[in-house]
């Protein structure tokens, strides 16, 4: 008997070590998302919920890269839309039109991402704060003007179609794309967590609070700023490639200021320093309409109110919960735990009588 309990204790210890592992939550989340696809194939989940999930995953990848800049580096960049668009058009042109193998396309896109990230990084060394936000906004506008003008590459005003995507010689179905996106999404979360917990993340955090103090502690501003921008651009371009894989269409004028602002809003609303918060924020900004509001009859009748609802939500969250939605959840959890404790004390008082 004792042997059995010992064995069980050991087992539960091992189980705890698995559950408490930082990656466990991410992988479980990915498995749940994959399970949703299975539910879809059984017809239990509507297509708009699947769309909402995929959009949340793709935009979360962008927002994760962005949070490295904003939540950890303290640098606001509004050129995100341009980078995402660049990724989508690289995929659409090199894989869709020229039929390059995927590995070449990936190589090209990472090369472009590194070059663009280095350029923005060098700009960020010279310009700071609100000015950097507006200058990167200008960079985004340059990219958008480039997309609209260079119609051989992007399709101009008629957009770039991307229908016949093949991987290793086989046509890829929508389900396969969903699985690819989920896997990359989980990998992106793990990568972000690793970067945050590594010396790089700590250095970025130090730079956010004070440039001069960080430099005096021996942190190279040049190295870490460039690194942060390169990582964020790589994430954005990757997300752009996933976007065109799922939507199968990319339209140059769509990659405008309001897209970048939405990403920024998602990061701020969710909570810039927490991975769960970012995903929550992205879902609030991009997925809420598709997944929930579309099913409420009141919003179905007045579609303009959906936009107003989003706006009011952003304003209220930023004004009353500066730490983001995740802070709200943490407060609620804390209050809940306190409530349970109080209940237990009351139960004990009831059971054993008052402690004199």
């Amino acid at each position, binding site marked *: 008997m004792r042997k059995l309990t010992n064995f069980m204790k050991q087992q539960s210890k091992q189980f705890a070590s698995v559950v408490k592992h930082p990656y466990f939550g991410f992988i479980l989340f990915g498995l749940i998302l994959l399970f949703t696809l299975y539910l879809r194939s059984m017809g239990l989940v509507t297509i708009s919920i699947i769309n909402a999930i995929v959009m949340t995953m793709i935009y979360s990848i962008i927002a994760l890269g962005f949070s490295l800049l*904003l939540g950890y580096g303290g640098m*606001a960049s509004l050129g995100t839309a341009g980078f995402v668009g660049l990724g989508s058009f690289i995929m659409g042109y090199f894989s869709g039109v020229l039929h390059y193998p995927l590995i070449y396309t990936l190589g090209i896109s990472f090369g472009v991402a590194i070059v663009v990230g280095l350029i923005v990084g060098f*700009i960020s060394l*010279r*310009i*700071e*704060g*609100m*000015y950097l*936000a*507006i*200058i990167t*906004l*200008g*960079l985004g*506008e*340059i990219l958008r*003007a*480039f997309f609209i*003008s260079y119609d051989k590459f992007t399709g101009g005003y008629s957009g770039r179609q991307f229908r016949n995507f093949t991987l290793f010689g086989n046509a890829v179905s929508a389900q396969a794309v969903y699985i690819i996106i989920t896997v990359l999404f989980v990998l992106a979360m793990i990568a972000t967590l690793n970067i945050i917990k590594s010396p790089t993340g700590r250095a970025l955090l130090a730079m956010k609070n*004070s440039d*001069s*103090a960080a430099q005096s502690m021996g942190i190279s501003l040049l190295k870490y700023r460039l690194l942060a921008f390169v990582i964020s651009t790589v994430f954005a371009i990757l997300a752009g490639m996933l976007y065109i894989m799922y939507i199968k269409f990319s339209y140059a004028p769509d990659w*405008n*200021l*309001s897209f970048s*602002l939405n990403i*920024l*809003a998602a990061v*701020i*609303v969710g909570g810039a320093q927490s991975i769960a918060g970012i995903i929550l924020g992205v879902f609030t900004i991009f997925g809420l309409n598709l997944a929930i509001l579309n099913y409420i009859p009141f919003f179905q009748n*007045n579609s*303009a*109110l*959906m*936009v*107003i609802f*989003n*706006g*009011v*939500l*952003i*304003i209220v969250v*930023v*004004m009353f919960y*500066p730490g983001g939605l995740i802070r709200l959840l943490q407060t609620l959890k804390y209050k809940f735990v306190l409530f349970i404790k109080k209940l237990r004390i009351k139960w004990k008082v009831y059971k054993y009588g008052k402690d004199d």
Partner: protein
Amino acid sequence: MLVPGIDVALNQILIFVPALVVLYFLMDMLFFRKHLKRQLYRNKLINIILVVGLIGVFFFTIKAITMQMFLQIFLLNLVDLCVLVLATTGIVLIFKTSVTTNFAQGMMATFGAFFAANFVLYLTSNSSMGKTPKLFLGMFAGIVCASLLGLFVDVVIIRRGKHVSSVGKQMITMGLVLVLMGLIPVIFGTIAPSLEAFSVDVKLFQIGDMMLVIPYHNLYALVITVVVLAILFGALRFTKWGLGVRATASSEIVAGMMGVNTRVITAMSWAIAGGLGSIAAFLYASAGAQVQVASMIPVQVNAFMAAVLGSFSSFGGPIVGALLINLFSSVAPFYNDVWQSVIVYGVILLLVLAKPLGLFGKKTAKKV
């Protein structure tokens, strides 16, 4: 729009500008290298080189496209310049008092313009007024509407969000954009009744031996802008409100301690910014564009760039920035009409990289 001499001008610029850059590095390396005041001399040299470079670029361009063409294009684009200057001034005013870039400026302006357009329509059907007074009344109604909106936004939202970081405030204005974007179609419908121009006639006049044409509408726009800006700058310079704005801009807390009612100052700034935006949107719409929900967004992006180019730290700088952007975008189509916006934004980017605080920005010492 290709002009015969433009290739030569392009070549001249492509030699002239890099030559100036090389000159800067040579001077820096040979003469300033061991000087104690190296940074000061560098900044002065950058200023001189920028002025010489800009004059040179415009000189070569004007030589290629002729003075008459240049002035003509400038006069035809005058209304765009007025719109840009008004929008930029509104953004800078809000940046000074609330320390945030107001992304909702364009939407507030559009709200005013929608109200103005509907008011003009109402006047047309209910009274027998002449065209010009009708339009002026409409514009005035738009100004009042947008000012009230600005006041409302400040009193209800921005004032309560004082503790929010500046990025957070940006997000609040971003949420405001969404709210207004949803609200405008509910109140006014998606496309407002189109606004007429003040006059469709043009005026012919002569400078030297150049015959030039200016539309009367542009003249009206110019007069309105100059009058409004003159009143605004006069108020900033000579009234108590202006003193308050300048005090709040330098430090809100200290201004409050010195007895400045920063709440009233900020609220009035939002109201005035709304009014300026509304005039801008009205002029922009009546110059031929329809009043649409998204019609002010490109103007707003340009206004941000103008404000950064001229620096947020003064009121005059952004106006020069707006003028430069307007000149660049009227000259750029001569060089390449497909890539014009890329050229304009690229040039602005390079200028800001050369002077990170803007053309007229002053460096403020920061405590570590």
